[in-house]
């Protein structure tokens, strides 16, 4: 059930606090908190304040342009959109089975992008919170602080990012706007020189992946009770799993489990996603609220992404990640790990898996194969689903007889987590802000809860990021009574009217 802080009984009599825009979250979102006279939190909402539909951007374009075109939806997740669109186009061109070379090159690309995305999030965006604490001085709580205090960690983050980007460049053909995946397959295989180039550093990458998991475990267990309780919410979890229940972020069936770990549905053909999932709307947000239809809107919302994937899968196919998954599962004591901050832990297990999977693939002779394409009869509907770094990503297209897109529906990872992010900030607001004066460290706790999901509001809204943070207090007459502004320099300034 949504928390009772979603909608206050009498909001006009409450004081409104606006956190706008969020830092370390791409795009333009804001959080509003309504306090009563006694400073009790009565309402908490994550808003999306701008929306430009991607349907308009896509409709009217020929389907064969889609894998390249959709990369421009978001500068943060271009490879995720590239691969999801390519899978949808596979269906459009009647491809039921990719060649071994095509599938393995796409997988390599996907592992590379997931590795670099997770490295950015941990080493750059969230490790400052985790390493220094949520109430650390603002200027210190950023990547510079990490570098100053732990120079090797920061350097590893930079080099892990670089390695993932190189995997993308080699498999997609270019650093940006790559064309590697095309309808029915890929347009190039890897040369032996390219394979040797990527092999050169992969053992180091795997080692850094192991080090990163050990680091997050150390951080997590140092304050276990706090990390398990912070923004923890009991939710359903959704994601793809492989045919044998194994962890698989490129392909598989949909699995949904409830908060206790019980099955809701399993191995569902993702092209039938609309039989199982619905997208709800609320009059205060432009971002939709997906839910599992069988459970209804109030009980059917769910989480996607690393936390859901590591909880949902039965095993990892690579030994080091599987060892870490077992330890992760033990922390749940027989039920799924529901701590929102465990997203970070799960994310780094996935990073380790990607490093191991890349190392295995680079030994596979199919990467250098010449059989790149399989095509069949053109179809009118194409649906592609992948597990993007931030969670399950759905691309659904309808085309006419000329191959022109006349309908598009995309459910992006961040949208899948919309209700969960709202519930997490309500949990934090109720636990840490209720009855207190609002301060920057307290407000940062709200942002920490959101950052755990690594949301990409650029994907969800197509809005450009705006960096300064602004907190505005408004009374029941809608008058601004206080304003807290985080400037581009990181300085905090209070400007009361």
């Amino acid at each position, binding site marked *: 059930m949504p928390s009772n802080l979603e909608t206050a009984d009498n909001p006009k009599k409450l004081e409104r606090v606006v956190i706008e825009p969020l830092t370390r979250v791409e795009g333009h979102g804001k959080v509003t908190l309504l306090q009563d006279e006694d400073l009790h939190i009565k309402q908490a909402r994550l808003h999306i304040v701008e929306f430009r539909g991607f349907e308009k951007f896509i409709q009217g374009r020929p389907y064969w342009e889609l894998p390249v075109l959709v990369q421009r939806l978001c500068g943060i997740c271009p490879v995720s959109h590239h691969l999801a669109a390519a899978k949808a186009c596979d269906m459009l061109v009647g491809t039921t089975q990719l060649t071994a070379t095509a599938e393995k090159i796409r997988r390599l690309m996907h592992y590379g992008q997931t590795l670099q995305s997770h490295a950015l999030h941990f080493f*750059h965006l969230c490790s400052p919170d985790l390493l220094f604490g949520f109430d650390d001085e603002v200027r210190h709580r950023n990547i510079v602080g990490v*570098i100053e205090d732990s120079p090797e960690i920061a*350097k590893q983050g930079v080099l892990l990012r670089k390695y993932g980007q190189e995997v993308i460049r080699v498999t997609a053909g270019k650093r940006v706007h790559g064309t590697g995946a095309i309808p029915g397959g890929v347009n190039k295989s890897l040369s032996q020189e390219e394979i040797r180039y990527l092999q050169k550093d992969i053992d180091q990458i795997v080692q850094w992946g192991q080090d990163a998991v050990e680091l997050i475990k150390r951080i997590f267990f140092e304050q276990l009770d706090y990390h398990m309780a912070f923004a923890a919410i009991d939710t359903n979890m959704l994601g793809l799993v492989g045919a044998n229940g194994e962890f698989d972020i490129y392909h598989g069936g949909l699995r949904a489990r409830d908060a206790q770990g019980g099955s809701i549905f399993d191995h569902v053909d993702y092209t039938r996603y609309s039989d199982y999932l619905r997208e709800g709307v609320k009059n205060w947000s432009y971002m939709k609220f997906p839910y599992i239809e069988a459970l209804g809107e109030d009980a059917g919302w769910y989480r996607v992404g690393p936390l859901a994937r590591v909880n949902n899968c039965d095993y990892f196919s690579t030994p080091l990640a599987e060892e870490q998954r077992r330890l992760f599962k033990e922390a749940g004591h027989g039920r799924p790990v529901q701590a929102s901050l465990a997203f970070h832990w799960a994310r780094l297990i996935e990073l380790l898996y990607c490093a191991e999977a890349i190392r295995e693939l680079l030994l596979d002779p199919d990467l250098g194969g010449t059989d790149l394409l399989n095509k069949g009869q053109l179809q009118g509907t194409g649906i592609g689903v992948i597990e993007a770094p931030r969670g399950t990503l759905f691309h659904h297209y309808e085309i006419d007889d000329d191959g022109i897109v006349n309908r598009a529906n995309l459910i992006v990872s961040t949208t899948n987590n919309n209700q969960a992010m709202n519930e997490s900030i309500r949990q934090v607001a109720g636990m840490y802000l209720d009855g207190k004066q609002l301060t920057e460290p307290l407000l940062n706790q709200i942002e920490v809860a959101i950052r755990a999901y690594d949301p990409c509001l650029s994907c969800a809204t197509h809005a450009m990021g705006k960096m300064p943070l602004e907190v505005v207090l408004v009374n029941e007459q809608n008058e601004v009574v206080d304003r807290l502004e985080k400037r*581009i*320099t990181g300085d905090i300034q209070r400007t009361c009217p």
Partner: protein
Amino acid sequence: MLQHPAKPELVFTWGNPSRGDDGLGPAMYELLLQEDLQGVDLLTDYQLQIEHAIDLEGREHVLFVDASISASAPFELVRLRPEQDSSYTTHAMSPQALLSVYQQVNDSTPPPAWLLSIRGYDFGLGEPLSAEANGNLLAAFNHIKTLLGSERPAEQT
């Protein structure tokens, strides 16, 4: 770690070509690709990120090129210094912050760097470059060609 031989000069542009005038950086990249530029590496991306600090290694000079909604038309050129601004905490960094990451990670001074900000006006998804921005792009292009064929630019503020 993965490295390519670096040419002494680097022009690094960024932006999203499908966001209207945010595509000014990539458009400049395309224009410069047509030129026979000796000793110059051209790179482009959607946005600056921490790994781009590696692209700065071994350079004598770096010119960043980006769209700006606040620069004076047609463009502004400023010398950059490493700066620990709050763009560190976002998915996209400022070039000053990138220089700072370079300095911290390499424990050395980054190469001399400038930012050329081309004035843009409309940043809507799916929109082409506006006519005004296109004019600014051509003016900036001519200036960059002059810069690359001469001594490095003097500092402007």
